[in-house]
């Protein structure tokens, strides 16, 4: 069966510091991968998606970036965090149209 992992589970970072969140999927190959952010009162916002290694599509302009160095690994990064980057970050994988979500990372930027 397929599983999806995210780490870290929680993170507290100062403004201006870098960020790296990791997502890995097990038990499948060549999945579509997605990064979402869920901010308080703002619902789920799609940040990036990837249909293959090295292929990244950005949905919204921001100071975040994503990379897919391996088939089942998806990384979300920032060089300098802003206060507005605080939120709950969710990674998801998709075999077709439904998506399966990871446990999430709670990021607090102070």
């Amino acid at each position, binding site marked *: 069966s397929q599983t999806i992992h995210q780490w870290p589970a929680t993170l507290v970072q100062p403004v201006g510091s870098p960020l790296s969140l990791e997502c890995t999927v097990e038990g499948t190959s060549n999945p*579509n991968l997605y990064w979402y952010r869920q901010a308080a009162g703002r619902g789920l916002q799609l940040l990036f998606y990837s249909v293959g290694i090295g292929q990244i599509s950005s949905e919204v302009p921001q100071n975040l970036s994503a990379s897919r160095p391996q088939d089942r690994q998806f990384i979300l990064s920032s060089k300098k965090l802003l206060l507005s980057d605080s939120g*709950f970050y*969710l990674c998801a994988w998709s075999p077709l149209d*439904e998506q399966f*979500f*990871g446990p*999430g990372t709670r990021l607090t930027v102070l």
Partner: protein
Amino acid sequence: AQSVTQLDSHVSVSEGTPVLLRCNYSSSYSPSLFWYVQHPNKGLQLLLKYTSAATLVKGINGFEAEFKKSETSFHLTKPSAHMSDAAEYFCVVSYSGAGSYQLTFGKGTKLSVIP
């Protein structure tokens, strides 16, 4: 363009009574529709999925949803609420584009269950 409207931001029911969470959708073609549940500080879990095979879809934990094309609705129901059902529920429509499927999420309905 696809859109989803969840008609209630918050629903409160007593334990053992029926649950109804309402969702209307807009889609330019025959959609795939989903309901997801999210418990506090957890990821989203797929409850059920509609893909035109049957209009009444049964999901996990006793939930079901009925697709009504004439009303463009996909309401989620459960005959008897449990305390563990307290969570936020998202109605979602899927569309394809640029080599992958994208999801459009409703704004969520928070379900409270009163003992």
